[in-house]
């Protein structure tokens, strides 16, 4: 019994197992990893939504003619639309694309599959997003009698812009979390140095290199941060799965009926798995820099 104890203590001459507490640092890091995971999933979700909606936003506005409209009427409508100054491009949508686009909203309705009478949809690409889509819609309705004008594309485009800036904000939040993590590690390491000043001095006088001493701190910190980040990420997973579930209908899916049915597979697992690794890296580097800087005051 004596030997393993003695060996393990001998591996920790600075007493870092007590000086760098296995509660406070991992706890703080876990909280930050949780925030990081939320930001990560937010960024991922925003990017998914904007990619998804972009298809719909390709046409800023649509003009619908009844399914029964004869080809000549469609041609006339197209010509009238192309004369409008705001319109860059006007094009009738192919039936397959229309069906594909409607699927998320209608579901795989048997009627759609059976070739239910779909209206003629003309996509309008605008020169730029109008300030007042309603006014433009009114103008179009007058130019093409009998048409139904949809300005939803304008809204989608606005949502896409919002999703993009949301993505930017969440990435910034992620960077902020990383920065705070580094600061927390630096504070913990400085406290550890203060608590082990005497022991550090003894090791230094016995010929320990800066790399040796800094490496002991960095190894311990990297382990604690990795464990904390892992805990935070694991805690975040159900929250993220729940959020993904809420977003599912927006992405063309369905809300889950049970916890097991939550869209676990849709979580950004690879990025999430990177959190503890990244955290450990940040902790290691911060500890190295902090300790080496402090050691430079010794000869």
């Amino acid at each position, binding site marked *: 019994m004596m030997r393993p104890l003695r060996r393990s203590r001998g591996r920790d001459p600075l007493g870092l197992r007590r000086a760098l507490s296995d509660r406070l640092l991992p706890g703080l890091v876990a909280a930050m990893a949780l925030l990081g995971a939320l930001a990560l999933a937010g960024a991922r979700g925003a990017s998914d939504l904007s990619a998804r909606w972009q298809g719909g936003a390709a046409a800023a506005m649509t003009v619908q003619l009844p399914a029964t409209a004869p080809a000549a009427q469609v041609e006339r409508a197209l010509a009238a639309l192309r004369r409008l100054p705001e319109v860059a491009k006007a094009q009738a949508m192919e039936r397959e694309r229309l069906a594909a686009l409607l699927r998320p909203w209608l579901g795989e309705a048997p009627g759609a599959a059976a070739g239910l009478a779909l209206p003629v949809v003309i996509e309008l690409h605008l020169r730029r997003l109008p300030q007042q889509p309603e006014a433009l819609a009114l103008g179009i309705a007058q130019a093409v009698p009998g048409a139904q004008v949809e300005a939803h594309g304008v809204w989608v485009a606005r949502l896409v812009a919002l999703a993009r800036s949301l993505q930017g904000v969440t990435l910034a939040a992620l960077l902020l979390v990383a920065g705070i993590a580094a600061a927390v590690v630096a504070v913990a390491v400085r406290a550890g140095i203060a608590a082990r000043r005497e022991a550090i001095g003894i090791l230094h006088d*016995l*010929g320990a290199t800066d790399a040796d001493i800094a490496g002991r701190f960095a190894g311990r910190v990297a382990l604690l941060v990795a464990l904390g980040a892992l805990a935070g990420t694991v805690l975040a997973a159900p929250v993220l799965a729940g959020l993904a579930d809420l977003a599912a209908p927006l992405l063309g899916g369905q809300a889950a009926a049970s916890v097991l049915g939550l869209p676990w597979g849709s979580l950004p697992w690879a990025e999430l798995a990177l959190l503890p690794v990244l955290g450990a890296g940040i902790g290691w580097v911060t500890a190295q820099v902090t300790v080496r800087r402090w050691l430079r*005051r010794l000869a």
Partner: protein
Amino acid sequence: MVRFASVGLRYAGPAGAGGDRSGPEVLHDLSFILPTGSFHWLLGPSGAGKSSLLRLMQLALRPSRGEVEVLGVPLSRVRRGALPGLRRRIGVVYQDFRLLPHLPVFDNLALPLRIAGRAEPQIRADVQEMLRWVGLESKAGTLPAALSGGEQQRVAIARAVVMRPALLVADEPTGNLDIAQARRVLALLQEMHRLGTTVVVATHAEALVQEHPAPALRLAEGRLVAHG
């Protein structure tokens, strides 16, 4: 061999920003040579600069001016990165022992060997031998706090010599010990000298010095006032 040439030392001033040495000079114009394998006392009243001089010798400080040469290496020409390797060849004993309180005697003794990256089997053999030498074989698993002052100082001496240093410096090694313990500690230091190590012992216990006459460096207010 240890050579000091016109050495001056300042500590950082009270405002002590960074490495700037703005405090008063505590050592002035020290010049002397300690031949290889010699034994020297370092004498002088408290505050004379004995500890500061020993810190220069053990490479814990660099001089503010002049040249310090230890183990044949002039410090002014040594990069900081080369100092740890030199320190491993210098044994140091302090008045307050400076053992690591959370490590048992065995691991305190093993520390210099582990820092130097020695293999565990060799570490065990060397530590056992040192424990025998200082008469503490039965205390390998004991924490320093459970030892008497004299025993702690013997552990500290064993730690200082376990790497077979060429230079051994001791700063008031008997200052906290009763006379019987002090004699035992001094006997160990003198045995290292007989084995060929260059030894410097700072003390203001004149009684011990009279029992063991040897060449002395005598400091007063940071100046060398006698050598020999």
